């Protein structure tokens, strides 16, 4: 599956590509408007990560071009402008999601994964990880066909982990994902620990291996235990 990163800040673009590059994603980059326009006309992408302010043109025009040509590529706008109007405008213009800079790569990855899931699994919305099965429509997780009794926060957390499997996710990224970035919670993210602990306990209880690993003080990693 191919992802196009249209972002003029090369270092940010590189980071995004590096993070997303895994067995199922191949990333391509475009640093300006013209290159981006050329690439979208030549290829189809599972998802396009689109910056609005680009050299030689606006990202919104690329969005328009995509819609005019009836391209089904999923689009997530990443913009330094954090205002409801810009968000509404971008989504009305046909973007699937809108993320304000600066963001956590894990957040971007989760959103890209969500867009791709929506675009590619028509109706049959299931994510599988090892013994774990997540039914997105029903918002429930199953292990060996047994439904896990999860709270909403635990379910969101599990989905976030699976969208970022094999990656270390920082505590602040988890807090922001679950509680939103408006909540000024200071540096103390201890409260997320309770949710992680409960989720881990429930997974183990239903017979799954211990997927969640704590990485020093930085965060957590969701992966198959070695």
């Amino acid at each position, binding site marked *: 599956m191919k992802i196009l990163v249209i972002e003029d*800040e090369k*270092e*940010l673009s590189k*980071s*995004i590509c*590096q*993070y997303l590059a895994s067995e199922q994603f191949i990333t391509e980059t475009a640093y300006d408007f013209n290159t981006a326009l050329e690439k979208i006309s030549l290829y189809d992408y599972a998802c396009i990560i689109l910056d609005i302010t680009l050299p030689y043109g606006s990202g919104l025009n690329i969005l328009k071009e995509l819609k005019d040509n009836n391209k089904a590529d999923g689009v997530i706008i*990443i913009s*330094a*402008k*954090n*205002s*409801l*109007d810009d968000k509404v405008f971008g989504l009305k213009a046909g973007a699937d999601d809108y993320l*304000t*800079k*600066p*963001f*956590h*790569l*894990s957040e971007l990855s989760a959103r890209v994964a969500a867009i791709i899931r929506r675009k590619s699994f028509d109706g049959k919305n299931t994510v599988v990880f090892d013994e774990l099965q997540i039914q997105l429509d029903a918002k429930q997780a199953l292990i060996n066909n047994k439904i896990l009794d999860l709270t909403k*926060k635990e379910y969101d957390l599990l989905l976030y982990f699976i969208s970022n499997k094999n*990656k*270390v996710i*920082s505590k*602040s*990224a988890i807090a922001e994902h679950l*509680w*939103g*970035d*408006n*909540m*000024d*919670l*200071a*540096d*103390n993210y*201890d*409260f*997320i*620990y*309770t*949710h992680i602990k409960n989720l881990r306990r429930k997974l183990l209880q239903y017979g799954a291996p211990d997927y969640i690993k704590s*990485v*020093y*003080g*930085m*965060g957590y990693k969701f992966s198959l235990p070695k």
Partner: protein
Amino acid sequence: MKLFTKYNRINVISTVIIFLIGCAAFSFLLRYVIINQVDEDLKIEKNEILTYIKTNAHLPSVIEVKDQYTTYRSINKPITLTNKIFTNEAYDKDDRKKELRRTIEFTVNVNNEWYMVNVSKSLEGTDELIQTIIVITVALILLILAATFIINRIVLKKLWHPFYSTLSVTQQFNLNDKQRIHFDATNIDEFNYLNSTLNNALIKAQKDYKSLKEFTENASHELQTPLAVIQSKLDILIQNEKLSEGESINIQGAYDAVQNLKKLNHSLLLLAKIENNQFSAQTKIDLTQLLQNKLGQFADLWKNRQMTEKVNMQPVVIKSNEQLVDILLNNLLSNATKHNYPNGSISITLQHKKLIVTNTSNEGVIDEKILFKRFSKANISADGYGLGLSIIKQICDASGFVCIYNFSEPNVHSFIIEFN
């Protein structure tokens, strides 16, 4: 004191003084002239008597003339000859009262017999004249005062009208307004000059303020991209499995600092946007519902810190900007949480369009002067920048809410928001 009053006071006092001096001088002068005239008459009278005696060798008979009295009195041979003019008081038989008279007295020798001749003229007419003059003067003073008063009332008010209109325009001036200030043109040079000077100063202030705001906003915007780069690099860096514990601690430190920087920048942008009235859309907000959601979000946090919450809510619906109200509630609750201690308590009361958030704390009373100031030391906790409260204040100002701070011992802080 008003300019009119001050001007009127000076005007009235000087007018009265000038008129009084004028009146006194006029009456003295008139009296002097009249008395001189009377004296001349008396001297003529004397000459006539002397001439008559020289020709006829006897005293002339007294002829009754109105307001003139002549008497002869025989005397012994005087040592010196008398010849004097003076003012005296005498009884007037006709008017039956005392009156002032001007009298000439001289001695004459008629056939070796000495007589004292006394001719007086009544000054009653003169007094009447002077009285009339005083009455006229006083009447004039009153008339002039009345005229001045009316002129000041009508003319000065009219003359000063442009000044007051300039004043009211200046009073309504708001640095934040995008509208240009407008003064009505007048046909008085001084006021036009005042208006143009004020206009220039205010436009410059507006421009400076605007560029300062734009600078803050642009700087914050421009910071977003490098912040995104740093954030992304750190997100990549923590993926490295070979990091030692020491390296991880360093990265964690940098990571936390970037989170703080993100928050700071976010707050500065938010403040700039509120000032730019970018949150103008108004909707009906079910405050109870919104607050209930927020409490749900904070519940984990409070539970984790073993804090207890007391909630008392009555249905309240307001009309305002939903985003701003959301941020307001967030900041109030965050503030009450951050400045609290483990096992502390938070009380939330929502009723009668009033929200009261009270929290226990280790910190003492906050000086209200710096309470809502940006970056003020009073509300900088170990991890904050002192922007939370100024955002609360800014949102209240922009939305027409009233924010009140209350402190009671022992270290209980409350913030009361009145939604109007």
